[in-house]
């Protein structure tokens, strides 16, 4: 697997780092030549997964923990898998959350991704998003990667 096929980060889970990882992911994603709308949908879904960690995973901890981010492209299946993992506690949205907004996060990720898997354990939560049809039209673009 080449460097261009993977992107990994491990950062403190706060809003500023969410923005940095999102921007890095968006730059890395350009190599696949997606339409602007599709590109934006992927970035939107990934930001939502990261933002959920920053906002909720460590709300019961005195200091925020880390969020591990990984994006892996599988050329054989033309699919992209993004994994966002934390070491905090899963928290269901409550009635006190912003109405019709925070509760939409997970359904929104499910609607934007082609596959969504959420694993909850006492030691953390892992969200895995799969996007299909990625990189099946880049052809000669491999030499023109811009990250």
């Amino acid at each position, binding site marked *: 697997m080449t460097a261009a096929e993977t992107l990994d980060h491990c950062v403190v889970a706060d809003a500023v780092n969410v923005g940095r990882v999102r921007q890095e992911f968006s730059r890395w994603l350009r190599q696949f030549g997606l339409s602007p*709308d599709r590109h934006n949908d992927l970035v939107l879904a990934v930001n939502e997964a990261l*933002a959920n960690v920053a906002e909720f995973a460590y709300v019961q901890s005195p200091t925020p923990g880390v969020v591990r981010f990984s994006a892996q492209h599988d050329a054989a299946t033309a699919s992209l898998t993004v994994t966002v993992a934390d070491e905090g506690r899963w928290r269901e949205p409550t009635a006190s959350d*912003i109405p019709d907004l925070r509760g939409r996060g997970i359904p929104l990720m499910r609607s934007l991704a082609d596959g969504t898997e959420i694993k909850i354990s006492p030691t953390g939560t892992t969200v895995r998003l799969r996007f299909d049809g990625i990189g099946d039209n880049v052809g000669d673009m491999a030499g023109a990667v811009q990250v």
Partner: protein
Amino acid sequence: MTPVRVDRLPGRCMTTVPVGPHLTVILEMTSRDAVVAATGEIDAVNARLFADTVTNLSVGCATLLLDLRRVGFLAVDAIAAPHAIRAQMLRADADWAVLPGPAVERVLDLCDPERLVPTAAEAAHRIAV
């Protein structure tokens, strides 16, 4: 997207305000009308400051056109910003509308199905665009 012409405001003054490292707003206003154009990204880091900046800049104006065509990313939780601006405009009895680009339009489609945030196409008969 239908091309929208934004006329320069006669007798205007212009102000540029950075809203953190990734967002800038430019205010162009007369004594009555304001056009606020944003360039950059809006997310959990700057959404509240963005909403506060826009509402503070447009105090006293009868109309506000919020030009978001150069916003390349709007996070889902940042949709709270246009809703906060909407609340302030309602309190001030001011007319307003958003000019969305593709990124903003997508989030409005996903998160504002009731269309509480008016877009310029819907408000063209009220706001000079």
